[in-house]
């Protein structure tokens, strides 16, 4: 038997196995979809596996999807001519200092929050992809905290701000040089956006 034909045989076996998995779908895999709002895929919901017994390794799948995408017109936050629509603050490599050039953005956001005591915002920290995911999550957090502190100094209370981090999860894949610069940033997101 040649190597090539051996591989073909295996491929066919693999396909066979996959078909088998489809056939037995209700047994080993019971997918469940959890949807927030998206109406298109309301519920393919849970098929409570019951006592299919046999395979202790069976795994039930959960799907998590959708999110709000509200849109408010005439909102200064969305007006491209308003500085409030500028939402990215960029950082130097290995730094979490808010640079002077982003001060107008921070001040505008502070003014908005002080004028709208019910408004709430989330600061999302980001890093480039170098390093490990969890550690980068913490590094991104440090950046969002730095922006929060700048807002605090302008009188904004912590109750209006949540600091979170995406770490490297939104980073450019295989970035090099200046492409990585865009990854080191804090995104400002207002509630409901």
């Amino acid at each position: 038997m040649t190597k090539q034909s051996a591989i073909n045989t295996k491929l066919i076996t693999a396909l066979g196995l996959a078909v088998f998995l489809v056939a037995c779908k209700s047994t080993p895999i019971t997918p469940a979809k959890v949807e927030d709002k998206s109406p298109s895929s309301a519920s393919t919901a849970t098929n409570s596996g019951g006592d299919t017994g046999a395979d202790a390794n069976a795994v039930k799948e959960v799907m998590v999807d959708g999110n709000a995408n509200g849109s408010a017109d005439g909102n200064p936050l969305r007006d491209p001519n308003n500085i409030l629509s500028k939402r990215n603050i960029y950082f130097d490599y290995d730094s979490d200092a808010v640079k002077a050039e982003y001060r107008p953005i921070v001040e505008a956001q502070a003014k908005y929050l002080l004028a709208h005591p019910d408004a709430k915002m989330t600061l999302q920290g980001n890093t480039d992809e170098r390093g490990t995911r969890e550690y980068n999550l913490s590094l991104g957090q440090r950046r969002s905290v730095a922006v929060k502190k700048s807002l605090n100094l302008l009188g904004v209370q912590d109750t209006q701000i949540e600091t979170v981090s995406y770490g490297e999860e939104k980073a450019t894949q295989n970035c090099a040089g200046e492409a990585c610069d865009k990854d080191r940033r804090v995104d400002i997101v207002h509630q409901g956006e």
Partner: protein
Amino acid sequence: MKLFKLMAFLASFLVANISYAALDIEITGGSAQQIPIAVVPFANAAATKDNISEIISADLKRSGLFRVLETRGMANLPTSPAQIKYAEWVALQAQALTVGSVEPIAGGRFKVSFQLMDALKQTQLAGMDYQIAPNQVRTTAHKIADIIYQKLTGEPGAFASRIAYITKIGKRYALQVADADGFNPQTVVSSNEPIISPAWSPDGSKLAYVSFEKKKPIIFVQSLTSGKREVLANFKGNNSAPSWSPDGNKLAIVLTYGANSQVHTINANGSGLKLITKSNAIDTEPVFSPDGSHIYFSSDRGGKPQIYKVAVDGGTPSRVTFEGAYNVSPKFSPDGKSLAYIRNDGGKFKVALQDLATGQVQLLSEGSQDESPSFAPNGRVILYATKARGRGALAAVSSDGKVRQRLNDAAGDVREPAWGPLLN
């Protein structure tokens, strides 16, 4: 749609087992003294869709500790000890051989028998009978491979265990579990937002993980069999880096509120939250020592990220790593004697292994963006994430650094591997 991806994944692993290196499991290096063993095709092996003898052979080969002998040219292929002509196998330099059979029985089930024989002494080293459903062939093959491994190396095997990992295909993230050989992948949870940091409960029944589905990191715990998922931690700020205590009662997690990452512990039912580290630096990636007495974590309290340890009830942390300017993601070997972690070695992120008694460190991996080390339950192999041709892939290295493997998923990115406990 998803099943097509699944097929591609499966197919790739199967091809790999045949030996086409460029595609999936690449094995490089190998133990100097491999045990020569013949896995004689089981009688009636074609009766099941998964070929049991081939799965056993592949397991043994992949461990790097065995030289699996070619049996195709042999005139006599015994399927029970009585049929063995030992001289032929000794001539082939086999130290041991396995024979066995598959036999259909009532209810669409199968009876699988196998014997492991010492080729020189002509004695039986092990023998088992199993009555199984068709979908248990792979698991049974892995259990047999574990018995062979244990009998011939004196150490427990880890073939009958599972791995968890994250795939990213297009914009879709999925947490999957598969057998230790990459077969039989099943999706645990999928989302359009990132999923990271899967962690097995010590009994292998649950996975804790971090999901960004609510636009921020939240920790979930999900039962694999029922699919029931519960929020473990959703506090203001980040909730991340879960890891279980050895008894499975507690988890170490990282919370931020409005400040930097700090290590906390929380009961598995979500009660009893306790702050463990108190610094204004980053404290993250906590793991329990196997004896449950300490929590090891990465921290930049000393300016650069290093690994520290603290008593499980809190207190003053002390530093564990001293070489290099970036050591993160600590993971304990199951015997608690060594610590694997990621070191930035001149701009290249590699898996390092530190002997905790002597402090001696060995760099095990060769990649430049390696992360998420995870020990096999027998401590012989460390699974980790690497980059291959610009994409996330999984790789494994034996804990002595001699055998390396790479597992690629043809469909997309694979990352964040976590090796689960042994199945009983």
